[in-house]
């Protein structure tokens, strides 16, 4: 097994890259959620009438621009949902760099399935 050390080192490299990018994604979502939560607790107001929660992307982005706490919190939640998707995207690139075509194909398939899920989520 002469190729084994190379594979191990390459995998370690892949994992470091993925870990780093994921970390940025998670910290970013956490900061957005924290800002939203802080605003919500300080003002005691969600930014919307009653129990209304914005769920359309357009409404969330518009609400974030107007500093509405619930909109910012939902944006943070959405970013958090996207972090695993981001991880899959980065993994495709990492496997590609490693010239592991089998895993480029496998990981791309996972991404396609996730995109189908996103489409079903928005349409359904």
């Amino acid at each position, binding site marked *: 097994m002469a190729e084994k050390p190379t594979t191990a080192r390459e995998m370690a490299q892949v994992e470091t890259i993925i*870990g780093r990018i994921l970390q940025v994604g998670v910290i970013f979502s956490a900061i957005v959620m924290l800002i*939203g939560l802080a605003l919500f607790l300080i003002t005691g107001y*969600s930014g919307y009438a009653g129990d209304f929660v914005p769920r359309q992307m357009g409404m969330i982005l518009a609400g974030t621009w107007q500093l509405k706490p619930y909109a910012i919190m939902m944006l943070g939640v959405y970013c*958090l949902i*996207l972090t*695993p998707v981001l991880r899959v995207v980065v993994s495709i690139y990492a496997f590609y760099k490693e010239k592991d075509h089998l895993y480029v194909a496998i990981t791309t398939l*996972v991404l396609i399935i996730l995109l189908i899920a996103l489409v079903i989520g928005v349409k359904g």
Partner: protein
Amino acid sequence: MIHTAIIMLAVGIFAGIAGAILGIGGGMIITPILTLGMGLDIKYAIGASIIAVIATSSGSTIAYLRDNVLNLRVAMFLEIATTIGAIVGALLTGVLDPKYLYLLFGCLLVFSGWNMYRKLRRGQEVLQRVEPDKIAAKLKLNGTYFDKAEMKDVDYQVENVPAGFSVMFGAGVASGLLGIGSGAFKVMALDTFMKMPLKPSSSTSNLMMGVTAAASATVYFFNGAILPGIAVPMALGILVGAVIGSRIMQVLPARWIRIAFIPIILYIGFEMLFKGLGVHF
């Protein structure tokens, strides 16, 4: 309002630590707390719990990626099964009576808990004798991880790839249908069926939960099941708890993790069985 946020933050930290150590997404902890403990509608509990699953997964995989415990190829390959399962599960919601899934998964979890207890009695440690497996070799699924408690590299092989793949599909369906990470199930597929050691099983299942949950979370996000006032402080608590939990996890010997795991897996199993049978306490 501040009161609710602080409680959710605390629940999150607790669920994050427990989830990271046991390889479960926290959904199994959170749904009972929110429904039984706080009287929240199950729909919103599920919404909060699926976000909790992603937070647990993302929070703790950061630590695992650095420490080289994770098997990325196993995760990616099996995610084909879990994500398809999650979509099927999400589509099945409302069509199928979840009672049957509760019963089926309850039985399997109880079986898995019993199986782990049996292994423990036999005194078998992390590494198991595994026959060289053609599919595992072809898919490059065998791996190595560094065990901090034993201070050495451990090589391992996996087997029963089709069985693991099938159980993963079921885990995906459960995740999509019930809004859980079904991490106990994923650990079972990796550990019991594919004979992967517990530590890489736990962290690999953690990564997979995030990707699987992302598929179903989108559905919950757009159909209004996510209440930001509950999901946000909980997710923040979980991120903190998951990082603490994954630190604790790596210095604990595998045996202790198993001992902690058995009553929990049994408890969840019986809870699901009772739920399926309609028995209330």
